[in-house]
């Protein structure tokens, strides 16, 4: 890879991590002394993606905002990498009228028509709409693609199978991503999935399947690039599983007492690893690392500020937007 491309991947990963750390901070800021999930400026479930930056960064590097991404209950890394407006996204997470969904959606329901980004809190059910986006893209004669994301736990849901079959059958320009972070809440992969790699399932649909084993952003970038090129060329869908890492809990407040691997986790953090690689390759040094960090921090804090400054929705508007007006 070119140094600039590597630097871009790094920048994206740092931006994501910076974002998640800021949300983490804001989420917990006003939930003490006793954690109350419904309290504070950012209430509700919060699924953060720290550790999974390589997947989003590696995949989205190949996309423009004309391409679609459907993400999961853990959507921030893909939203950030795909270029969703940080201010509107953050405002949505804070439940403000300036948010992507005017405060109606929340962190699991981010919809951004500008970047064709969406997500869903229901396991694997983000796959099927991606097929329709891909169909619409093709019908309109473009080479735009749809990327659909699930976790490894979700890959055992019926929607996964139906979507792969339909996409393969109709040769839709879709790339299916499975983020294998070893866990579906407290259930280890070994207790949810009867095969060690979802790549083997691709054969059941006659499509290319790959598994990236080491949470390496460059490896993701390479494999995703092939799949996306293929999709753009009208050659149909691919399935890519990435063995990634859930650095934190399933959601905030998760005690993770079920997690035997917890001790070793920090050492597997992909960010310092990648940073070291880039330093060794001369792509990064102290000043550039600081600059990237500062840039990310500025953007993220500006977004947080924007969100906090924005007004909350009026109760009197609670019934709006159930239906579009004629």
């Amino acid at each position, binding site marked *: 890879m070119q140094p600039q491309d590597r630097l871009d991947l790094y920048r994206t990963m740092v931006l994501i991590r910076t974002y998640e750390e800021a949300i983490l901070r804001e989420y917990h800021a006003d939930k003490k002394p006793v954690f109350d999930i419904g309290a504070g400026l950012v209430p509700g479930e919060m699924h953060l993606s720290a550790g999974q930056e390589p997947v989003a960064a590696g995949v989205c590097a190949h996309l423009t905002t004309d391409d*679609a991404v*459907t993400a999961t209950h853990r959507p921030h890394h893909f939203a950030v990498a795909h270029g969703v407006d940080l201010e509107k996204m953050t405002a949505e997470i804070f439940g403000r009228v300036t*948010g*992507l*969904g*005017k*405060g*109606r*959606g929340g962190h699991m*329901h981010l*919809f*951004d*028509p500008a970047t*064709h980004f*969406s997500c*869903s809190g*229901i396991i694997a*059910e983000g*796959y*099927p*709409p*991606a*097929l*329709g*986006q*891909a*169909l*619409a*893209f093709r*019908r309109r004669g473009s080479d735009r693609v*749809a990327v659909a994301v699930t976790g490894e736990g979700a890959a055992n849901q*019926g*929607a996964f199978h*139906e*979507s792969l*079959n*339909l996409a393969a*059958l109709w040769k839709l320009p879709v790339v299916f991503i499975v983020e294998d972070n070893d866990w579906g809440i407290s259930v280890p992969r070994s207790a949810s999935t009867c095969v060690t790699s979802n790549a083997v399932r691709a054969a059941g649909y006659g499509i290319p399947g790959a598994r990236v084993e080491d949470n390496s952003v460059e490896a993701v970038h390479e494999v995703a690039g092939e799949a996306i090129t293929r999709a753009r060329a009208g050659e149909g869908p691919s399935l890519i599983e990435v063995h990634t890492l859930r650095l934190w809990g399933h959601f905030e407040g998760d005690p993770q007492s079920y997690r035997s691997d917890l001790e070793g986790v920090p050492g597997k953090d992909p960010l310092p690893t990648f940073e070291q690689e880039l330093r060794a390759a001369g792509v990064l040094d102290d000043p550039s690392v600081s600059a990237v960090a500062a840039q990310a921090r500025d953007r993220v804090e500006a977004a947080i500020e924007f969100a906090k400054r924005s007004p909350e929705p009026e109760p009197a508007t609670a019934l*709006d*937007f*159930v*239906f*579009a*007006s*004629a």
Partner: protein
Amino acid sequence: MTLTEPSPATRAQRKLSTAKAMVEAISQEMERDQDVFVLGEDVGAYGGIFSSTTGLLDKFGPERIIDTPISETAFIGTAIGAAVEGMRPIVELMFVDFFGVCMDQIYNHMAKIHFESGGNVKVPMVLATAVGGGYSDGAQHSQCLWGTFAHLPGMKVVVPSNPADAKGLMTSAIRDDNPVVFLFHKGIMGLPWMAKNRRSIDHVPDGEHVVPIGEASVARPGSDVTIVTLSLSVHHALDVAEELSPQGIDCEVIDLRSLVPLDTEAILESVGRTGRLLVVDEDYLSFGLSGEVIARVVERDPTVLRGPAARVAVPDVPIPYARPLEYAVLPTPSRIRQAVLELVNA
């Protein structure tokens, strides 16, 4: 099934089956708007199990009339994604009874995306599906279930009872910027291979015909009893009304046509005049349409009722296969007649 039907008479006086009226609406809208397309099981060469798409494949080709695998979650989701990108899909769920394999796409996605996006994303699509029993198709192929859809916010729910309304409501549904669930009763489609009521082949306006969603119609005006109903039961109610008319019992029959939005004013206006309310519903009795209609009246003013409101619906039992059992639980004319008589004699 696609046995041949008598061809329609002259165009001016022409009568169509409900199935053909639906197809006509779809066809006209497809000509009008390139973004309209149809997908579902057996909608292509077969023409729809209940003839809801007959002839469309020949006219529009396989790119716009698309047979799908038996993967309702995937293909309804496909319709949703296409709608989000500005197309206007009509997706068919062969029997409403199959909603259980794909309800998440329907009620958590199709119905909620517009709201969750704060109105930024529209989902203009039609989910068309066949409902109803009466031909011994058993517990998994005979349900109406409109109450289930109407209970969950974010989708409009329309239920025509005759060819003209089927055309007009389908036109509106396709043009609506919201997801619309279009429930057509097999018994009103005018199929040559199923017993049908005489009104299932009837006059249908030529050309553009729009019936606004959310307006009930007075299928028969009357002064003694208000029968609020929909779909096939409209015809049973009309038959009973005609039969009781010589006895001096004058029934008003309200055809709801749409559950969401529900035309509460039309109900209130009629019950306000007659003072007697009977709801006839082929869906299950409890926690559904029939209770809702009664509640809409009573939360406004219970004193308009001269006596207890009555319901004729499927009494909370799965639809039995054997004919004598099925007809014991369906809202048959004889059950409706008895209920009307009890109301006026109370």
